[in-house]
Protein backbone atom coordinates (compact mmCIF):
# COMPACT_ATOMS: atom_id res chain seq x y z
CA UNK A 1 0.00 0.00 0.00
CA UNK A 2 1.44 3.31 -1.03
CA UNK A 3 0.44 6.88 -0.30
CA UNK A 4 -0.01 8.74 -3.57
CA UNK A 5 -0.55 12.46 -4.24
CA UNK A 6 -2.63 13.14 -7.37
CA UNK A 7 -2.43 16.70 -8.74
CA UNK A 8 -4.86 17.66 -11.51
CA UNK A 9 -7.09 20.69 -12.05
CA UNK A 10 -9.86 18.52 -13.51
CA UNK A 11 -11.97 17.07 -10.69
CA UNK A 12 -13.23 14.20 -12.86
CA UNK A 13 -9.68 13.18 -13.72
CA UNK A 14 -8.66 13.36 -10.04
CA UNK A 15 -11.67 11.34 -9.04
CA UNK A 16 -11.07 8.61 -11.62
CA UNK A 17 -7.34 8.36 -10.84
CA UNK A 18 -8.17 8.20 -7.13
CA UNK A 19 -10.78 5.55 -7.78
CA UNK A 20 -8.52 3.23 -9.77
CA UNK A 21 -5.59 3.67 -7.38
CA UNK A 22 -7.72 3.05 -4.33
CA UNK A 23 -9.15 -0.01 -6.07
CA UNK A 24 -5.54 -1.22 -6.38
CA UNK A 25 -5.20 -0.75 -2.62
CA UNK A 26 -3.36 2.57 -2.44
CA UNK A 27 -4.12 5.65 -0.36
CA UNK A 28 -4.73 8.75 -2.44
CA UNK A 29 -4.61 12.46 -1.57
CA UNK A 30 -5.91 14.98 -4.12
CA UNK A 31 -4.54 18.43 -5.01
CA UNK A 32 -6.02 20.93 -7.50
CA UNK A 33 -2.83 22.50 -8.77
CA UNK A 34 0.91 22.80 -8.21
CA UNK A 35 0.61 25.23 -5.30
CA UNK A 36 -1.92 23.00 -3.57
CA UNK A 37 0.23 19.93 -4.27
CA UNK A 38 3.43 21.51 -2.91
CA UNK A 39 1.61 22.64 0.22
CA UNK A 40 0.26 19.11 0.82
CA UNK A 41 3.61 17.48 0.19
CA UNK A 42 5.23 19.71 2.82
CA UNK A 43 3.02 18.44 5.64
CA UNK A 44 2.77 14.75 4.73
CA UNK A 45 4.98 11.99 3.49
CA UNK A 46 4.15 10.45 0.06
CA UNK A 47 5.53 7.44 -1.81
CA UNK A 48 4.79 8.82 -5.28
CA UNK A 49 3.32 11.94 -6.89
CA UNK A 50 1.21 11.95 -10.05
CA UNK A 51 0.88 15.42 -11.57
CA UNK A 52 -0.85 16.94 -14.57
CA UNK A 53 1.12 19.47 -16.64
CA UNK A 54 -1.31 22.16 -17.80
CA UNK A 55 -2.88 23.65 -14.70
CA UNK A 56 -3.79 27.08 -13.34
CA UNK A 57 -1.93 28.65 -10.41
CA UNK A 58 1.16 26.52 -10.84
CA UNK A 59 1.65 24.22 -13.80
CA UNK A 60 3.17 20.76 -13.66
CA UNK A 61 6.65 21.30 -15.03
CA UNK A 62 7.43 23.98 -12.44
CA UNK A 63 5.89 21.79 -9.76
CA UNK A 64 8.11 18.84 -10.77
CA UNK A 65 11.24 21.03 -10.71
CA UNK A 66 10.39 22.32 -7.23
CA UNK A 67 9.49 18.88 -5.89
CA UNK A 68 12.69 17.37 -7.25
CA UNK A 69 14.68 20.19 -5.71
CA UNK A 70 13.10 19.79 -2.31
CA UNK A 71 12.52 16.03 -2.31
CA UNK A 72 15.01 14.49 -4.75
CA UNK A 73 14.15 10.89 -3.86
CA UNK A 74 10.37 11.32 -4.24
CA UNK A 75 9.20 9.67 -7.50
CA UNK A 76 7.11 11.96 -9.71
CA UNK A 77 4.99 10.85 -12.66
CA UNK A 78 3.77 13.41 -15.18
CA UNK A 79 0.48 12.95 -17.05
CA UNK A 80 -0.80 15.07 -19.94
CA UNK A 81 -3.37 15.05 -22.68
CA UNK A 82 -1.48 17.68 -24.67
CA UNK A 83 -1.71 21.43 -24.46
CA UNK A 84 -4.75 23.51 -25.42
CA UNK A 85 -2.62 24.95 -28.25
CA UNK A 86 -1.95 21.51 -29.67
CA UNK A 87 1.59 21.26 -28.33
CA UNK A 88 2.39 17.71 -27.29
CA UNK A 89 5.95 17.98 -26.09
CA UNK A 90 5.19 18.71 -22.42
CA UNK A 91 5.73 15.15 -21.27
CA UNK A 92 9.18 14.95 -22.85
CA UNK A 93 10.02 18.28 -21.24
CA UNK A 94 8.81 16.95 -17.89
CA UNK A 95 10.95 13.82 -18.27
CA UNK A 96 13.98 15.92 -19.18
CA UNK A 97 13.43 18.03 -16.09
CA UNK A 98 13.29 15.12 -13.68
CA UNK A 99 9.96 13.24 -13.98
CA UNK A 100 10.49 9.54 -13.26
CA UNK A 101 7.63 8.42 -15.48
CA UNK A 102 5.32 9.94 -18.08
CA UNK A 103 1.80 8.94 -19.10
CA UNK A 104 -0.39 10.22 -21.90
CA UNK A 105 -4.04 10.84 -21.09
CA UNK A 106 -6.32 9.05 -21.16
CA UNK A 107 -4.35 6.47 -19.23
CA UNK A 108 -5.58 2.91 -19.04
CA UNK A 109 -5.73 1.14 -15.66
CA UNK A 110 -3.00 -1.35 -16.62
CA UNK A 111 -0.38 1.15 -17.78
CA UNK A 112 -1.34 3.44 -14.95
CA UNK A 113 -0.69 0.82 -12.32
CA UNK A 114 2.44 -0.48 -14.01
CA UNK A 115 3.98 2.97 -14.16
CA UNK A 116 2.98 4.08 -10.69
CA UNK A 117 3.86 0.82 -8.96
CA UNK A 118 7.20 0.67 -10.81
CA UNK A 119 8.13 3.85 -8.95
CA UNK A 120 7.25 2.46 -5.55
CA UNK A 121 10.01 1.33 -3.20
Amino acid at each position, binding site marked *: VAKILVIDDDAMVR*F*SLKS*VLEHAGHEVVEAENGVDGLSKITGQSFDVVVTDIIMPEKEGVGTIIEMKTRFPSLPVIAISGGGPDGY*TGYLETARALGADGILEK*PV*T*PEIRLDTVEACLP
Partner: protein
Amino acid sequence: VLKVVTPINIARRHAGTIQIEFTTEVVDAKIFDAVKISITSYALLMILFAAVMYWVLRVIVVRPVAALNTGVKKVAAGDLEHRVEADQDDELGELALAFNQMAEELRKSERKLVETNKSLEAKVVERTTELLAEIQEHARVEKDLKRHQRMESLAGLAGGIAHNLNNLLQPIILLSAVGIEKLPKGSKLKEDLEVIREAGNRASELVNRLTEFSRENPVEMKRENLNEIVRESLQMIRASFPSSIEIKDDIDGFEAEITADATQLQTVILNLASNAADALTDMPGVLDVSVDRIDVTEIDREETPELRPGEYAKLRVSDNGKGMDEKTMRRIFDPFFTTKDVGKGTGLGDGLWHRHQTRRCHSGRERARARFDFRSLAACCEGAGGRQTNSNSYGKRITWPRSW
Protein backbone atom coordinates in the same frame (compact mmCIF):
# COMPACT_ATOMS: atom_id res chain seq x y z
CA VAL B 1 12.03 113.52 -153.91
CA LEU B 2 15.74 113.47 -154.24
CA LYS B 3 17.31 116.11 -156.42
CA VAL B 4 20.87 116.19 -157.54
CA VAL B 5 22.11 119.36 -159.23
CA THR B 6 25.53 119.53 -160.64
CA PRO B 7 27.01 122.19 -162.92
CA ILE B 8 28.46 121.12 -166.17
CA ASN B 9 31.75 122.79 -167.05
CA ILE B 10 33.25 122.40 -170.35
CA ALA B 11 36.72 123.82 -170.76
CA ARG B 12 36.30 125.30 -167.48
CA ARG B 13 33.35 127.07 -168.69
CA HIS B 14 30.09 126.65 -167.31
CA ALA B 15 28.12 124.91 -169.80
CA GLY B 16 25.09 124.38 -167.96
CA THR B 17 23.57 122.58 -165.07
CA ILE B 18 22.40 119.11 -164.81
CA GLN B 19 19.63 118.58 -162.48
CA ILE B 20 18.47 115.12 -161.82
CA GLU B 21 15.50 114.53 -159.75
CA PHE B 22 14.50 111.12 -158.28
CA THR B 23 11.33 110.26 -156.75
CA THR B 24 11.84 108.24 -153.43
CA GLU B 25 8.61 106.39 -153.68
CA VAL B 26 10.10 103.34 -155.20
CA VAL B 27 13.05 103.40 -152.88
CA ASP B 28 10.86 103.91 -149.92
CA ALA B 29 8.73 101.05 -150.97
CA LYS B 30 11.72 98.85 -151.38
CA ILE B 31 13.13 99.94 -148.04
CA PHE B 32 9.77 99.30 -146.39
CA ASP B 33 9.66 95.87 -147.90
CA ALA B 34 13.16 95.15 -146.80
CA VAL B 35 12.45 96.34 -143.28
CA LYS B 36 9.24 94.32 -143.16
CA ILE B 37 11.07 91.23 -144.21
CA SER B 38 13.74 91.86 -141.67
CA ILE B 39 11.30 92.36 -138.84
CA THR B 40 9.29 89.30 -139.78
CA SER B 41 12.40 87.20 -140.00
CA TYR B 42 13.57 88.48 -136.68
CA ALA B 43 10.28 87.81 -135.05
CA LEU B 44 10.18 84.29 -136.40
CA LEU B 45 13.70 83.78 -135.21
CA MET B 46 12.79 85.00 -131.78
CA ILE B 47 9.79 82.69 -131.62
CA LEU B 48 11.94 79.80 -132.68
CA PHE B 49 14.50 80.74 -130.09
CA ALA B 50 11.85 80.99 -127.42
CA ALA B 51 10.47 77.58 -128.39
CA VAL B 52 13.91 76.06 -128.27
CA MET B 53 14.58 77.69 -124.93
CA TYR B 54 11.26 76.46 -123.63
CA TRP B 55 12.08 72.92 -124.70
CA VAL B 56 15.58 73.16 -123.29
CA LEU B 57 14.35 74.54 -119.97
CA ARG B 58 11.61 71.95 -119.81
CA VAL B 59 14.06 69.13 -120.31
CA ILE B 60 16.82 70.47 -118.10
CA VAL B 61 14.93 72.19 -115.29
CA VAL B 62 11.17 71.75 -115.23
CA ARG B 63 11.02 68.00 -115.67
CA PRO B 64 13.63 67.16 -113.00
CA VAL B 65 12.06 69.61 -110.58
CA ALA B 66 8.64 68.09 -111.23
CA ALA B 67 10.13 64.63 -110.72
CA LEU B 68 11.67 65.81 -107.47
CA ASN B 69 8.37 67.32 -106.44
CA THR B 70 6.58 64.05 -107.15
CA GLY B 71 9.35 62.16 -105.32
CA VAL B 72 9.08 64.33 -102.23
CA LYS B 73 5.32 63.84 -102.16
CA LYS B 74 5.66 60.04 -102.55
CA VAL B 75 8.31 59.81 -99.85
CA ALA B 76 6.20 62.01 -97.62
CA ALA B 77 3.32 59.59 -98.26
CA GLY B 78 5.49 56.69 -97.12
CA ASP B 79 6.84 55.26 -100.36
CA LEU B 80 10.45 55.07 -99.27
CA GLU B 81 11.37 52.84 -102.21
CA HIS B 82 10.74 55.70 -104.66
CA ARG B 83 13.78 57.13 -106.45
CA VAL B 84 14.19 59.95 -109.03
CA GLU B 85 16.41 59.95 -112.11
CA ALA B 86 19.73 61.52 -111.33
CA ASP B 87 21.65 61.35 -114.61
CA GLN B 88 22.14 65.05 -115.07
CA ASP B 89 25.56 66.46 -114.53
CA ASP B 90 24.47 69.69 -112.93
CA GLU B 91 22.98 71.10 -109.73
CA LEU B 92 19.62 69.47 -110.34
CA GLY B 93 21.35 66.16 -110.87
CA GLU B 94 23.15 66.62 -107.59
CA LEU B 95 19.88 67.57 -105.92
CA ALA B 96 18.25 64.40 -107.29
CA LEU B 97 21.20 62.37 -106.04
CA ALA B 98 20.90 63.95 -102.61
CA PHE B 99 17.17 63.28 -102.63
CA ASN B 100 17.78 59.64 -103.48
CA GLN B 101 20.34 59.31 -100.71
CA MET B 102 17.93 60.90 -98.26
CA ALA B 103 15.21 58.46 -99.32
CA GLU B 104 17.64 55.54 -98.93
CA GLU B 105 18.62 56.68 -95.44
CA LEU B 106 14.96 57.07 -94.55
CA ARG B 107 14.27 53.59 -95.87
CA LYS B 108 17.12 52.13 -93.81
CA SER B 109 15.96 54.01 -90.71
CA GLU B 110 12.43 52.80 -91.22
CA ARG B 111 13.58 49.20 -91.69
CA LYS B 112 15.67 49.46 -88.55
CA LEU B 113 12.72 50.96 -86.74
CA VAL B 114 10.46 48.14 -87.91
CA GLU B 115 13.03 45.55 -86.86
CA THR B 116 13.52 47.23 -83.49
CA ASN B 117 9.78 47.38 -83.08
CA LYS B 118 9.43 43.70 -83.92
CA SER B 119 12.23 42.83 -81.53
CA LEU B 120 10.60 44.93 -78.82
CA GLU B 121 7.25 43.32 -79.45
CA ALA B 122 8.86 39.89 -79.24
CA LYS B 123 10.56 40.90 -76.01
CA VAL B 124 7.27 42.21 -74.65
CA VAL B 125 5.55 38.93 -75.55
CA GLU B 126 8.39 36.92 -74.04
CA ARG B 127 8.45 38.96 -70.86
CA THR B 128 4.66 38.88 -70.62
CA THR B 129 4.76 35.11 -70.89
CA GLU B 130 7.45 34.98 -68.21
CA LEU B 131 5.45 37.32 -66.01
CA LEU B 132 2.31 35.25 -66.47
CA ALA B 133 4.27 32.13 -65.55
CA GLU B 134 5.68 33.96 -62.54
CA ILE B 135 2.19 35.10 -61.54
CA GLN B 136 0.90 31.54 -61.87
CA GLU B 137 3.84 30.24 -59.87
CA HIS B 138 3.26 32.91 -57.26
CA ALA B 139 -0.43 32.03 -57.08
CA ARG B 140 0.46 28.37 -56.69
CA VAL B 141 2.94 29.08 -53.92
CA GLU B 142 0.45 31.39 -52.24
CA LYS B 143 -2.23 28.71 -52.47
CA ASP B 144 0.15 26.16 -50.98
CA LEU B 145 1.08 28.59 -48.24
CA LYS B 146 -2.55 29.30 -47.42
CA ARG B 147 -3.31 25.63 -47.36
CA HIS B 148 -0.31 25.06 -45.16
CA GLN B 149 -1.47 27.82 -42.81
CA ARG B 150 -4.96 26.33 -42.74
CA MET B 151 -3.54 22.96 -41.90
CA GLU B 152 -1.35 24.52 -39.23
CA SER B 153 -4.30 26.21 -37.57
CA LEU B 154 -6.33 23.04 -37.96
CA ALA B 155 -3.49 21.15 -36.29
CA GLY B 156 -3.53 23.62 -33.40
CA LEU B 157 -7.29 23.30 -33.12
CA ALA B 158 -7.05 19.52 -33.24
CA GLY B 159 -4.46 19.56 -30.46
CA GLY B 160 -6.69 21.75 -28.32
CA ILE B 161 -9.69 19.51 -28.87
CA ALA B 162 -7.55 16.46 -28.09
CA HIS B 163 -6.47 18.00 -24.79
CA ASN B 164 -10.07 18.48 -23.66
CA LEU B 165 -11.25 15.12 -24.96
CA ASN B 166 -8.40 13.30 -23.20
CA ASN B 167 -9.48 14.78 -19.88
CA LEU B 168 -13.11 13.83 -20.56
CA LEU B 169 -12.16 10.31 -21.59
CA GLN B 170 -10.06 9.70 -18.51
CA PRO B 171 -12.96 9.01 -16.11
CA ILE B 172 -14.85 7.01 -18.76
CA ILE B 173 -11.91 4.67 -19.32
CA LEU B 174 -10.70 4.37 -15.71
CA LEU B 175 -14.02 4.28 -13.88
CA SER B 176 -15.57 1.78 -16.27
CA ALA B 177 -12.49 -0.41 -15.72
CA VAL B 178 -12.76 -0.12 -11.96
CA GLY B 179 -16.49 -0.89 -12.10
CA ILE B 180 -15.88 -3.93 -14.35
CA GLU B 181 -13.32 -5.29 -11.89
CA LYS B 182 -15.60 -4.71 -8.90
CA LEU B 183 -18.75 -6.24 -10.33
CA PRO B 184 -19.34 -10.01 -10.33
CA LYS B 185 -19.19 -12.01 -13.54
CA GLY B 186 -22.53 -12.15 -15.35
CA SER B 187 -23.72 -8.85 -13.92
CA LYS B 188 -25.79 -6.76 -16.34
CA LEU B 189 -24.15 -3.58 -15.08
CA LYS B 190 -20.71 -5.11 -15.76
CA GLU B 191 -21.75 -5.71 -19.40
CA ASP B 192 -22.95 -2.12 -19.64
CA LEU B 193 -19.66 -0.86 -18.29
CA GLU B 194 -17.77 -2.99 -20.81
CA VAL B 195 -19.63 -1.24 -23.60
CA ILE B 196 -18.75 2.12 -22.05
CA ARG B 197 -15.10 1.12 -21.77
CA GLU B 198 -15.03 -0.05 -25.40
CA ALA B 199 -16.62 3.22 -26.53
CA GLY B 200 -14.03 5.12 -24.50
CA ASN B 201 -11.18 3.15 -26.06
CA ARG B 202 -12.49 3.85 -29.58
CA ALA B 203 -12.86 7.52 -28.77
CA SER B 204 -9.30 7.44 -27.47
CA GLU B 205 -8.11 6.02 -30.81
CA LEU B 206 -9.81 8.89 -32.60
CA VAL B 207 -8.19 11.42 -30.32
CA ASN B 208 -4.84 9.77 -30.98
CA ARG B 209 -5.32 10.43 -34.66
CA LEU B 210 -6.09 14.04 -33.87
CA THR B 211 -2.97 14.29 -31.75
CA GLU B 212 -0.78 12.63 -34.37
CA PHE B 213 -2.03 15.08 -36.93
CA SER B 214 -1.05 18.00 -34.76
CA ARG B 215 2.45 16.62 -34.29
CA GLU B 216 5.24 17.41 -36.68
CA ASN B 217 6.54 14.03 -37.70
CA PRO B 218 10.25 14.18 -38.40
CA VAL B 219 10.92 13.56 -42.06
CA GLU B 220 14.21 12.28 -43.35
CA MET B 221 14.65 13.13 -46.99
CA LYS B 222 17.25 11.04 -48.74
CA ARG B 223 18.10 9.70 -52.14
CA GLU B 224 16.14 6.48 -52.33
CA ASN B 225 15.39 3.79 -54.83
CA LEU B 226 11.64 3.80 -55.31
CA ASN B 227 11.66 0.29 -56.76
CA GLU B 228 13.35 -1.04 -53.62
CA ILE B 229 10.83 0.70 -51.35
CA VAL B 230 7.95 -0.73 -53.37
CA ARG B 231 9.56 -4.17 -53.41
CA GLU B 232 9.81 -4.23 -49.62
CA SER B 233 6.24 -2.97 -49.30
CA LEU B 234 5.05 -5.72 -51.65
CA GLN B 235 6.68 -8.36 -49.43
CA MET B 236 4.67 -7.10 -46.47
CA ILE B 237 1.50 -6.82 -48.56
CA ARG B 238 1.89 -10.39 -49.85
CA ALA B 239 2.39 -11.68 -46.32
CA SER B 240 -0.74 -10.01 -44.99
CA PHE B 241 -3.16 -10.13 -47.91
CA PRO B 242 -5.81 -12.84 -48.18
CA SER B 243 -5.23 -15.38 -50.95
CA SER B 244 -8.42 -14.26 -52.69
CA ILE B 245 -6.60 -11.14 -53.85
CA GLU B 246 -4.12 -11.50 -56.66
CA ILE B 247 -1.18 -9.14 -56.38
CA LYS B 248 0.38 -8.02 -59.63
CA ASP B 249 3.43 -5.84 -59.88
CA ASP B 250 5.26 -4.12 -62.65
CA ILE B 251 8.11 -2.31 -60.99
CA ASP B 252 11.28 -3.42 -62.74
CA GLY B 253 10.86 -1.60 -66.03
CA PHE B 254 12.32 1.63 -64.77
CA GLU B 255 14.80 2.34 -62.01
CA ALA B 256 13.54 5.41 -60.19
CA GLU B 257 15.99 7.30 -58.00
CA ILE B 258 13.99 9.79 -55.98
CA THR B 259 14.36 12.04 -52.96
CA ALA B 260 12.00 10.83 -50.27
CA ASP B 261 11.41 9.65 -46.74
CA ALA B 262 11.32 5.89 -47.26
CA THR B 263 9.33 5.16 -44.10
CA GLN B 264 6.57 7.60 -44.90
CA LEU B 265 6.46 6.45 -48.48
CA GLN B 266 6.15 2.83 -47.38
CA THR B 267 3.35 3.80 -45.00
CA VAL B 268 1.49 5.39 -47.86
CA ILE B 269 1.89 2.32 -50.07
CA LEU B 270 0.78 0.00 -47.29
CA ASN B 271 -2.23 2.16 -46.50
CA LEU B 272 -3.27 2.33 -50.14
CA ALA B 273 -2.91 -1.45 -50.37
CA SER B 274 -4.83 -1.85 -47.14
CA ASN B 275 -7.64 0.28 -48.52
CA ALA B 276 -7.62 -1.84 -51.65
CA ALA B 277 -7.86 -5.01 -49.56
CA ASP B 278 -10.87 -3.58 -47.73
CA ALA B 279 -12.48 -2.72 -51.06
CA LEU B 280 -12.01 -6.30 -52.25
CA THR B 281 -13.28 -8.23 -49.24
CA ASP B 282 -16.29 -9.82 -50.90
CA MET B 283 -14.82 -10.59 -54.29
CA PRO B 284 -11.79 -12.17 -55.93
CA GLY B 285 -9.78 -9.02 -56.50
CA VAL B 286 -6.62 -7.83 -58.15
CA LEU B 287 -4.17 -5.37 -56.68
CA ASP B 288 -1.86 -3.77 -59.20
CA VAL B 289 1.32 -1.95 -58.19
CA SER B 290 3.54 -0.34 -60.80
CA VAL B 291 6.46 2.05 -61.16
CA ASP B 292 6.79 3.93 -64.43
CA ARG B 293 8.48 6.92 -65.83
CA ILE B 294 6.39 9.85 -67.04
CA ASP B 295 7.35 13.06 -68.75
CA VAL B 296 5.38 16.06 -67.67
CA THR B 297 5.24 18.72 -70.36
CA GLU B 298 4.06 22.31 -70.30
CA ILE B 299 0.75 21.10 -71.71
CA ASP B 300 0.32 18.57 -68.92
CA ARG B 301 0.77 21.36 -66.43
CA GLU B 302 -2.73 22.54 -67.15
CA GLU B 303 -3.91 19.28 -65.70
CA THR B 304 -1.28 19.04 -63.00
CA PRO B 305 -0.18 22.60 -62.22
CA GLU B 306 1.63 21.40 -59.13
CA LEU B 307 4.20 19.54 -61.21
CA ARG B 308 6.94 21.35 -63.05
CA PRO B 309 7.75 20.03 -66.49
CA GLY B 310 10.33 17.29 -66.38
CA GLU B 311 10.83 13.61 -65.79
CA TYR B 312 8.95 11.97 -62.97
CA ALA B 313 8.58 8.59 -61.44
CA LYS B 314 5.00 7.42 -61.23
CA LEU B 315 3.89 5.01 -58.58
CA ARG B 316 0.47 3.51 -59.07
CA VAL B 317 -1.49 1.43 -56.63
CA SER B 318 -4.80 0.34 -58.06
CA ASP B 319 -7.39 -2.33 -57.56
CA ASN B 320 -10.46 -3.60 -59.36
CA GLY B 321 -12.89 -2.62 -56.63
CA LYS B 322 -15.94 -0.51 -57.15
CA GLY B 323 -14.06 2.76 -57.25
CA MET B 324 -14.65 6.09 -55.62
CA ASP B 325 -17.42 8.53 -56.26
CA GLU B 326 -16.79 12.22 -56.91
CA LYS B 327 -17.64 13.20 -53.37
CA THR B 328 -15.12 10.80 -51.88
CA MET B 329 -12.57 11.83 -54.46
CA ARG B 330 -12.85 15.46 -53.48
CA ARG B 331 -12.30 14.73 -49.81
CA ILE B 332 -9.43 12.28 -49.85
CA PHE B 333 -6.94 14.98 -48.92
CA ASP B 334 -8.90 15.93 -45.82
CA PRO B 335 -6.75 14.74 -42.96
CA PHE B 336 -9.54 13.12 -40.95
CA PHE B 337 -11.70 11.93 -43.77
CA THR B 338 -12.50 8.26 -43.84
CA THR B 339 -15.08 6.04 -45.46
CA LYS B 340 -14.78 3.44 -42.72
CA ASP B 341 -16.31 3.00 -39.34
CA VAL B 342 -14.11 3.54 -36.33
CA GLY B 343 -12.35 0.34 -35.38
CA LYS B 344 -12.53 -1.14 -38.86
CA GLY B 345 -8.89 -0.88 -39.73
CA THR B 346 -7.05 1.85 -41.49
CA GLY B 347 -9.46 4.24 -43.11
CA LEU B 348 -8.96 5.93 -46.41
CA GLY B 349 -8.44 9.19 -44.61
CA ASP B 350 -5.72 7.67 -42.54
CA GLY B 351 -3.78 6.53 -45.58
CA LEU B 352 -4.18 9.77 -47.37
CA TRP B 353 -3.51 11.60 -44.20
CA HIS B 354 -0.03 10.20 -44.40
CA ARG B 355 0.10 11.52 -47.91
CA HIS B 356 -0.78 14.87 -46.56
CA GLN B 357 1.83 14.67 -43.84
CA THR B 358 4.46 13.57 -46.31
CA ARG B 359 3.47 16.24 -48.72
CA ARG B 360 3.48 18.86 -46.05
CA CYS B 361 6.93 17.88 -44.92
CA HIS B 362 8.27 17.78 -48.45
CA SER B 363 6.85 21.06 -49.58
CA GLY B 364 9.22 23.85 -50.40
CA ARG B 365 12.08 21.60 -51.29
CA GLU B 366 11.36 21.34 -54.95
CA ARG B 367 13.97 23.82 -56.10
CA ALA B 368 16.69 22.21 -54.07
CA ARG B 369 15.92 18.90 -55.70
CA ALA B 370 15.76 20.28 -59.20
CA ARG B 371 19.30 19.15 -59.86
CA PHE B 372 18.33 15.50 -59.72
CA ASP B 373 17.33 13.71 -62.84
CA PHE B 374 14.14 12.47 -61.30
CA ARG B 375 13.39 15.16 -58.90
CA SER B 376 9.85 14.24 -58.26
CA LEU B 377 7.62 11.44 -57.46
CA ALA B 378 4.09 11.46 -58.64
CA ALA B 379 2.06 8.67 -57.20
CA CYS B 380 -0.84 8.22 -59.50
CA CYS B 381 -3.64 7.06 -57.32
CA GLU B 382 -6.32 5.74 -59.59
CA GLY B 383 -8.04 4.83 -56.56
CA ALA B 384 -7.69 3.48 -53.21
CA GLY B 385 -10.81 2.25 -54.83
CA GLY B 386 -10.34 0.78 -58.23
CA ARG B 387 -10.04 1.64 -61.83
CA GLN B 388 -12.14 -0.54 -63.99
CA THR B 389 -15.53 0.86 -63.19
CA ASN B 390 -16.71 4.42 -62.95
CA SER B 391 -13.59 5.51 -64.71
CA ASN B 392 -15.19 8.84 -65.52
CA SER B 393 -16.03 9.56 -61.96
CA TYR B 394 -12.42 9.67 -60.96
CA GLY B 395 -10.85 10.27 -64.32
CA LYS B 396 -8.86 13.18 -63.06
CA ARG B 397 -5.46 11.95 -62.07
CA ILE B 398 -4.29 12.61 -58.59
CA THR B 399 -0.63 13.15 -58.26
CA TRP B 400 1.26 12.86 -55.09
CA PRO B 401 3.14 14.26 -53.35
CA ARG B 402 2.19 17.53 -54.81
CA SER B 403 5.42 19.41 -54.64
CA TRP B 404 7.96 16.67 -54.99
